[in-house]
């Protein structure tokens, strides 16, 4: 499962020898994230974001478990248990709440950069398709978890967000309304919905943790990719994960924590919506229902479909929104280019950066009110999004002449450093 020159675990401490010979857990950790895992020596800081996502997950688990000790999952008292109990009466409860709410944002920042890293450097290509597929599964689970978590404080946006999102299911022909009532446990979000969302919000992070273990396992079969996209050829191309990448990623973790702390301690409500400080009121619809920022690009795609063409506009919107994520599952087979790294693919590189701008435009439109100009902009941007993955990338991979690749990772490093 690793390169032949990988270091072997040889515990010197008799206790560790005793444990390792009975349950080789220390060996497992050593081979996974210790000195026993050889990693390309040329990884840049874009490769830090997998570790950061792990850190974000752990932060969310710890703050979330403690918050759950103080939360009441009932429509009558959820808002007060958060805004009085946790925010005012629990010692440092404000810290837990702000760390958890902003931790979700930090998690998505990290995940989006991690995914775009994969897109630019072709990390989804053979032999790492399974790593990518599991990554998309984790992304879907993360979105479901974040959505249900946002419902729990039972503010106005919680309630109306739940109303809108579960409304997607009513777009299903014939059985849609029945499915929605079944999922909510009622005709509108209420105690039944709040309790099942709380239950699932507690469950899914552990499912994510399981999927992360599979993601890392699948990664360790071929080993990490690298900025040149050229496979490891020998021992000179790699360094052991520990201490080299524990030290390098450690610095990234501290920078991550500094940005995270600025949000928690100095701008805890900056990314939130004021309406969620108003208790849920089924009789008063907010002027603009908007999800959290990390859903904005997908919300823009949903709202871009305004024409009934064969199918109702709403069904098109829901299909396109789910389709925009599900198509990522097919990416390893849509991009046929044998060259992985965008650095050696002149046409793909341009398409990649256009996609980044396109997704930012979609995000901007998704966070704006549904006024005609934003709708027009999101219709163009959504069309480009589908064109990128389903038309442009497959065609580019046939047309493009890649730049010559370096002979090996070491050769690329030595050329770059001028030795």
């Amino acid at each position, binding site marked *: 499962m690793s390169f032949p020159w990988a270091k072997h675990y040889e515990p010197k401490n008799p206790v560790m020898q005793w444990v390792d010979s009975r349950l080789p857990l220390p060996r497992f950790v050593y081979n996974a994230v210790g000195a026993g895992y050889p990693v390309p020596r040329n990884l840049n800081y874009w490769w830090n974001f997998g570790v950061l996502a792990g850190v974000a997950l752990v932060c969310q688990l710890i703050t979330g478990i403690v918050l759950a000790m103080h939360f009441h999952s009932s429509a009558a008292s959820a808002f007060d248990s958060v*805004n009085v109990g946790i925010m005012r009466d629990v010692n440092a409860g404000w810290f837990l709440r702000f760390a958890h709410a902003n931790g979700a944002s930090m998690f998505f920042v990290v995940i989006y950069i991690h995914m775009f890293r994969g897109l630019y450097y072709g990390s989804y290509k053979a032999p790492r398709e399974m790593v990518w597929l599991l990554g998309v599964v984790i992304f879907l689970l993360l979105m479901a978890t974040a959505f249900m978590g946002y419902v729990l404080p039972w503010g106005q946006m919680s309630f109306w967000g739940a109303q809108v999102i579960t409304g997607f299911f009513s777009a299903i022909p014939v059985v849609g309304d029945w499915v929605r009532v079944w999922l909510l446990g009622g005709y509108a979000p209420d105690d039944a919905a709040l309790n099942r969302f709380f239950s699932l919000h507690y469950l899914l992070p552990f499912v994510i943790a399981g999927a992360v273990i599979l993601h890392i396992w699948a990664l360790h079969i071929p080993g990490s990719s690298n900025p040149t996209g050229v496979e490891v050829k020998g021992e000179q191309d790699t360094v052991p994960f520990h201490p080299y990448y524990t030290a390098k990623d450690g610095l990234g973790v501290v920078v991550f924590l500094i940005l995270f702390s600025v949000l928690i301690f100095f701008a805890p409500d900056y990314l939130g919506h004021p309406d969620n400080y108003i208790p849920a009121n089924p009789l008063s619809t907010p002027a603009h229902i908007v999800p959290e920022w990390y859903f904005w690009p997908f919300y823009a795609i949903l709202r871009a479909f305004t024409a009934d063409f064969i199918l109702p506009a709403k069904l098109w919107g829901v299909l396109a929104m789910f389709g925009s994520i599900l198509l990522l599952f097919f990416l390893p087979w849509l991009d046929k280019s044998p060259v992985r790294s965008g650095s050696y693919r002149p046409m793909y590189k341009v398409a990649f950066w256009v996609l980044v701008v396109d997704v930012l435009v979609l995000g901007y439109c998704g966070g704006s009110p549904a006024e005609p100009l934003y709708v*027009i902009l999101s219709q163009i941007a959504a069309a480009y999004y589908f064109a990128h993955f389903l038309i442009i990338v497959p065609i580019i991979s046939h047309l493009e002449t890649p730049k010559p690749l370096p002979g090996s990772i070491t050769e690329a490093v030595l050329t770059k450093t001028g030795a």
Partner: protein
Amino acid sequence: MTSLFIKSIKFLVGGGFILVLLIALYGSVWGVINEPAAETAEHAMHKHPKELKLASDGPLGKFDLRQLQRGFLVYKEVCSACHSLNLVSFRNLKDLGYSDAEVKKIAKDWAIKQPVFDEKGGTWGERDNVPSDRFPKVYYPGTGTPPDLSLITKARHDGAAYVHSLLTGYNEKPSAEALAHFPDFAKTPDGMHFNPYFANLNIAMPPPLTQDGQVQYSDGTRATVDQMSTDVAAFLVWTAEPTLQTRRTAGWAVLAFLIVLGFLTYGAYRSVWAGVKH
């Protein structure tokens, strides 16, 4: 034949979504050209809050306790007739510098009492508030639903500035130009009051602060309408997050720790990678 279908399915799916989007786009553009959206009264007359500076602003801001006490007085004398403060407890007032005895007295003298249910008699009665009680709910029978004010500065954009602007915004009238477009606004409906800082423009709340000196300040500050509305806005920033100052103090300590840790990890990184080209 089958393999050709499989090969082109991506183009079919992509082309399908794009086609539907182009049809929708055509509809949107046609709509913009042929049926431009009518200007709304909100767009013509609604104003963003006036700028307001408070001692608690910014990463180094601290509460001005005397101002918070004045603001509490304004809340008590004016706002509390209709608006509750139900997420705050009387005991929290100690943060504003009141002594235990003062807090006890404020709770005991509070006009609205705590409802209690008599299990034996099966009837509702009431008792005086004690410091551990939350400010009691206010049941308002008139037009409109006065919101609870505990979180109001977090529940509105530019919360404190919004509160201050709303309280001082009753004198403003729609411009002649706006009235020409929206003649309905020449006469405000019965029981409503025009206020350009309110989202719906017409608000059910009558002007609460109408004359200087409406609240008796004991610290010598001149109780102008502008001063009273600023003070109550400052007070409501505190009620929305009494731990605000603790949060920032903790933040500076955390940042100082992390910056030192950052230098150490950078040193570790440099020393581990010394001599390894990458």
